[in-house]
C-alpha cells in the first residue's frame, strides 16, 4: 500500500512498520466510527441503556490491542467498547448489544457496560470500579501457574486509582510477580469531577507506582505509536517473568462521561485544546509523514465506514433479544434453578 518513498531516516527509525501502522490507524478508526454511530443511534432512540464512549481515547485502546498476541487477555470497564472493538470483535456484535438485539454480543443480557467476547480475549467489562484489577491478577496467576505465555491487560480510569481494590491488586501483582499490565487511562475526570480535585498526587497512577516498587510510567495516550511501543515493552516484561507494569496514559474523552452527560463542568477551551491532539488526527499525520498516501488512508476510511454502515443495517434488521433467554445461564447447568 506504500505509495511514496520514505526517507532513509524514516525507514531506519521505523520500528513499527507500515503494516502495523495501518492496523493501528484502522483500529482507531473502527472505534471512532462505531462509537459515533452508537451515539447517533442513541439520538434515534435505538440504543436504550447507558453508554460510555471512548471518543478521543482511541489511541490507548489501539496501541495496547495492536501490541497483543492472540491469546492475550483484555479486562475492561463499562467504558469498554473501544477495547472490545480493538480486539477484533465485529462492530455488529457491539452495536447489536447496545441496541438490545438478538445478534448482540451477549444477546442483550449484559448491555453496553459488560461487553465480553472470550473468543477474542475480551474477558469482560466490569461496571463496579476497581473490581477487575484483582480479577486480571487471577488470570495472570493462571498463566504463571500453567506456564502459559499470555499477558493479562487491565484497563481503567484515573478515578479508579482511588478505590481500595486498585491498591490490593497492585501489591498482589507485584509480590506474586504476575504477568499483568495495568493501564490507567487518565482522561482528567472521574464522572464529572476533575481527578485533581480528589487525588493526593498529580499523576493518579504514575505517582502511586513507587508504592509497589514499580517505575513511574506516564505516556502520551493520544499518540498510538507511543502507546504501542510502551505496550510491547510491558508485554515483554510480563512474558519474560519480569512481572507487572503500571502505565498511565494521558488522554481525554471528547464526549461526556456517559450518554446522559453534556459535560458542562469542563473549563472553556479545554475540549478544543484536546481536539487539536485528537489521536486520529495525529495518526493521519503520522501516516503521511511515513509516506503513506492519502488514497491508502481514504481507502481505509471508506472500508471502515462501510463496515459500520453494514453493521448498523444488520442490527436494525435483527430481531430484539429473545425472551427465551431471560433466565438462562445463571448457573452452569444453563438455568436458574436454585431448588428441586
Amino acid at each position, binding site marked *: 500500500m506504500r505509495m511514496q518513498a520514505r526517507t532513509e531516516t524514516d525507514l531506519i527509525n521505523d520500528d513499527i512498520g507500515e503494516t502495523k501502522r495501518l492496523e493501528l490507524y484502522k483500529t482507531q478508526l473502527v472505534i471512532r466510527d462505531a462509537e459515533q454511530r452508537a451515539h447517533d443511534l442513541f439520538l434515534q432512540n435505538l440504543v*436504550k*441503556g*447507558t453508554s460510555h464512549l471512548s471518543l478521543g481515547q482511541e489511541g490507548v485502546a489501539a496501541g495496547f490491542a495492536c501490541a497483543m498476541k492472540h491469546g492475550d487477555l483484555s479486562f475492561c470497564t463499562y467504558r469498554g467498547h473501544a477495547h472490545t472493538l480493538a480486539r477484533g470483535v465485529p462492530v455488529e456484535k457491539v452495536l447489536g448489544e447496545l441496541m*438490545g438485539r438478538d445478534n*448482540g454480543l451477549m444477546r*442483550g*443480557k*449484559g*448491555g*453496553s*457496560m*459488560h461487553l465480553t467476547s472470550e473468543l477474542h480475549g475480551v474477558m469482560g467489562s*466490569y*461496571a*463496579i*470500579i*476497581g*473490581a477487575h484489577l484483582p480479577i486480571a491478577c487471577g488470570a495472570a496467576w493462571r498463566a504463571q501457574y500453567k506456564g502459559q505465555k499470555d499477558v493479562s491487560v487491565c484497563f481503567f480510569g484515573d*478515578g*479508579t486509582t*482511588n*478505590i*481500595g*481494590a486498585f491498591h490490593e491488586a497492585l501489591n498482589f501483582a507485584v509480590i506474586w510477580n504476575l504477568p499483568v499490565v495495568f493501564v490507567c487511562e487518565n482522561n482528567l475526570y*472521574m*464522572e*464529572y*469531577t476533575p481527578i485533581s*480535585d*480528589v*487525588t493526593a498526587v498529580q499523576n493518579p497512577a504514575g505517582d502511586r507506582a513507587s508504592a509497589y516498587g514499580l517505575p513511574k510510567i506516564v505516556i502520551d495516550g493520544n499518540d498510538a505509536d507511543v502507546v504501542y511501543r510502551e505496550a510491547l515493552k510491558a508485554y515483554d516484561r510480563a512474558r519474560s517473568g519480569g512481572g507487572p507494569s503500571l502505565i498511565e496514559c494521558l488522554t481525554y474523552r471528547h464526549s461526556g462521561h456517559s450518554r*446522559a452527560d453534556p459535560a458542562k*463542568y469542563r473549563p472553556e477551551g479545554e475540549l478544543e485544546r484536546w481536539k487539536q491532539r485528537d489521536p486520529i488526527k495525529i495518526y493521519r499525520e503520522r501516516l503521511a509523514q511515513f509516506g503513506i498516501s492519502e488514497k491508502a488512508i481514504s481507502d481505509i476510511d471508506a472500508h471502515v465506514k462501510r463496515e459500520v454502515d453494514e453493521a448498523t443495517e444488520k442490527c436494525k434488521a435483527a430481531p*430484539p*433479544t429473545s*425472551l427465551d*433467554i*431471560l*433466565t438462562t445461564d*445463571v448457573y452452569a447447568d444453563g438455568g*436458574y434453578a*436454585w431448588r428441586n
Partner: protein
Amino acid sequence: MAELSYRDAVIRGISQEMERDQDVVFLGEDVAKAGGVFKATVGLYDKFGPLRVRDTPISEQAILGAAMGAAMTGLKPIAEIMFSDFIAVCFDYIANEFPKSRYMTNGQTKCPLVVRTGNGAGSRFGAQHSQSVENWCMMIPGLKVVAPSSPRDVIGLLAASVRDPDPVIFLEHKSLYSIKGEVPDGEIVDTLGTAKILRPGKDATILALAMMVPRALASAEKLATEHGIECEVIDVRSLVPLDTQTILGSVARTNRLFTVEENPRLCGWGAEIVSIVADEAFYDLDGPPVRITTPHCPLPASDLLEDAMLPNVDRIVDRIRRTMGA
C-alpha cells in the same frame, strides 16, 4: 401544596434538614459541584457551600467510614452511595461497623447517619447497576432501612432518617426520580416504622415497596374492576423498624397476604413478613401467603428483558387472581 418530582423532593428534603441543623453535612461522588448523577442534589452546593456539601474520590469505604467517624463525634452526615449495588464495595461499614458499634461498646458509641442510595431497576443499566438491595440491609441488626415511594414520603422519611439517632439506609428508587406528586408546603417530618394503607380492601392484603407500590395499586385497581377482588394495598415504607401491627391488622381483616417485591426471590423482605404472618397470624390466613418477586436471577440490560424480569401489573394480577381462585 406544590407538585414536586421525587428527585426534587430529595433536594428539598436534604435542604430542609441542612437548614435546620448546621451539623448535617453531605458527601458523595459528584454530588456537590455537579449535583449528582441523578441530578437529585442540584443546588445544594451553591446553597450550603463547599464545607457542607462535598465531592469525594471514588472511595466508597472512605465515604462511609468518614461518615461514621463524623457521626460518632458530633455531626449528622448524609452520605451518598451512587448506586445501591456499590454498597457491596463498602459493605463492611453497613454490616460490621455502623450497626454494631453501639452494642459492642455497651451504648457508648452513637452513629446518627443516613446513607442515601439509588436503588432498583428499570433504567436498563444491567446486572451491576439495577439491584434492589433492601434485604442486604434489612438482615443486619442495628440498621434502619427505609424506602419511600412518593415525593412526599421522600421528604418526610428523609427528615425522620436524618433526625433518627441510628444509622439509616435510605433507598431512593432510580425509576421513581422523575415521578411527580403533591407535596404540602412547609416542614415535613414523617415517622419511621409506619406503613401506609394506600387503598382499603377486604379480600386480600398486598404489601409493596418503592417502585412496586404504583404497580400494586394498579393491580388492585384491575383486580377490583375486572375480577371483583378488593385488595388492600399497603406501602411498607420502612423495613426496619417494621410496622408489623398495620400488616397483621390488615391480614386479620382480609385473611390473605401477597407481597410484591422487586428484590430477587430468596430471603427478601417478603420472606420475613410472610414468616411473621404465618407464625403469628396463622389462623387468620384463609389460604397460602404468596410472594410475587423478581426471579432468583441477575438483572438483564435490554429493555425487553428487564421489563420481563420484574413483577408487573399483569403478573401480579394473574398470580393473585389464580391464587384467589377467581
